[in-house]
């Protein structure tokens, strides 16, 4: 009797479980899982403009990819962007979070202001920064000139533009990182700091001995998601760099190239090959981060 009841109960769970899961599982399969394979499949085809059909070309897209200097440059540009954006956005956010975690006058106001870029449309953000960076009439060059410095070609000088873009990236995401760090900081028991205070540890010692180690799960999460996000940079570059900008070649990211080939030049086969490369890069880098984190937390 008892056993039968148990089976009945499980059957009910089975029925309801799958019923509840059905929309999500079917949706994920159609919208995401199958498209992954379709994109990989597509990367073996050439799609012509003007509605010409798919022509199987084997590995030709990949051959082209590996000998295409602009793809390697874009990969390099993407890394350059990530290497600036990720550490700075994390370090600055951490400083803000630690300072705001204290009982400070104006805490909420500061928090609200730092998070503000997160609620603005990226296209608007890119436009206003482009205006600030404007070499003739921009506010930044005006400030530089007024303290006696020369104007900078913020977004048309190929050796500076990638930094200008990364600055916008940092500015946009600092508030988001800060909110995540603040949530992590609030989990740290207050006793730790009181004990450290009694032992005579100063603020810096407390930061490195308590805050940083206790924050490491949050730190790991923020780092991994920021790296993935930075490797997918698109909006700022798309909005700030004109197609005739001389610095475009030295700033365009992999996703920018993906968009350009797939939807501007309608070469979806080559676009697919580029995004498969991006997938591989992100997978490898994330795997390395997870591995390092495991090794580090075991040690």
């Amino acid at each position: 009797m008892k056993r039968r009841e148990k089976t009945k109960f499980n059957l009910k769970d089975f029925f309801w479980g799958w019923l509840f899961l059905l929309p999500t599982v079917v949706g994920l399969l159609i919208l995401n899982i199958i498209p992954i394979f379709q994109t990989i499949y597509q990367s073996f085809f050439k799609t012509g403009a003007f509605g010409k059909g798919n022509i199987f070309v084997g590995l030709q897209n990949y051959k082209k990819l590996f000998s295409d200097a602009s793809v390697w440059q874009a990969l390099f540009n993407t890394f350059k962007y990530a290497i600036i954006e990720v550490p700075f956005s994390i370090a600055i956010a951490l400083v803000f979070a630690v300072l705001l975690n204290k009982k400070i006058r104006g805490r909420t106001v500061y928090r609200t202001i730092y998070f503000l870029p997160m609620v603005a449309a990226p296209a608007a953000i890119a436009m206003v920064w482009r205006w600030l960076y404007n070499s003739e009439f921009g506010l930044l060059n005006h400030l530089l000139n007024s303290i006696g410095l020369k104007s900078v070609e913020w977004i048309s000088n190929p050796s500076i533009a990638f930094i200008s873009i990364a600055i916008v990236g940092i500015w946009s995401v600092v508030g988001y990182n800060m909110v995540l760090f603040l949530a992590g900081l609030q989990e740290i028991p207050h006793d730790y700091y009181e004990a450290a205070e009694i032992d005579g540890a100063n603020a810096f010692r407390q930061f490195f001995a308590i805050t940083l180690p206790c924050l490491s799960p949050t730190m790991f999460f923020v780092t991994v998601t920021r790296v993935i996000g930075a490797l997918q940079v698109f909006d700022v570059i798309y909005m700030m760099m004109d197609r005739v900008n001389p610095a475009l070649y030295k700033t365009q990211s992999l996703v920018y190239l993906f968009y350009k080939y797939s939807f501007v030049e309608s070469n979806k086969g080559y676009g697919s090959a580029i995004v498969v490369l991006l997938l591989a890069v992100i997978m490898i880098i994330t795997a390395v981060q997870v591995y390092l984190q495991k090794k580090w937390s075991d040690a």
Partner: protein
Amino acid sequence: MNIKTKKLLNSALIQIVLLIGAVVMIVPFLWMLLTSFKTISESTQVNPFVIFPSKWRLDAFKSVMSKMNFLRLYWNTLVLIIGRIFFAVVTATMAGYALGRLKFPGRNLAFGLVLFQMMVPAQIFIIPQYLMVSKMGMLNTSFALIFPGLVTAFGTFLLRQAYISLPKDLEEAAVLDGCGVFARFLFVMLPLTRSSMVALGIFTALFAFKDLMWPLVVNTEQTTMPLSAALAKIQGQFTSDYPELMAASMLACVPMIIIYILFQKQFIEGIATSGSKM
């Protein structure tokens, strides 16, 4: 006395750092605001450099509003956001409950799918999703904008974590009272995950609002675009008229900023929850 001055100095230093940060964060918004009220010649005058407009003119606003139907853009954005929130919250709540509270064969496989989706960069879905929408003949519709957000792996994960962390006793008590699975889900467990549902809603709204590439790809007609894509188009059309560009940016950002300032507690908590549940 010495300790007291040290403490005072300390907090002054902290205030200075925070203030510099706040200025850096807010100046671009202020510059957007100031420029949008200037004339073109004021905005491009260098000697002397003009910071405040001589008169607060609405010309740039009037001009962009005559060139673009902002009411239409607001409506399209609203439909996109509400649609995405609705589908995300409904599907993720159901799936999250199944994954977090029920034991049945196939559950781990389904959860594996969710995790797998979250690890893959979203651009890899775009070409096939675009072709699907195109084949359905749904390009340039609200449906096209909502389409990739019909289900959400991230939301499912978030809600699963919320359901897992709820105590067992509650549900067991409901079982003893003779509640079926559906009644337990709807009346006992679901109300307890409210904060995670709000978090998912805010997260979904923000990222739907900020999404640029997908709207650019599927809705190329100006009447069907959301704000993000329309701004990108405006920039292409009148590149050098900065007062107009800034006025358009203001019109695109101000509604969301007002909502954010009114509900900032929910925004910040929502984002914090969505990150810390991982």
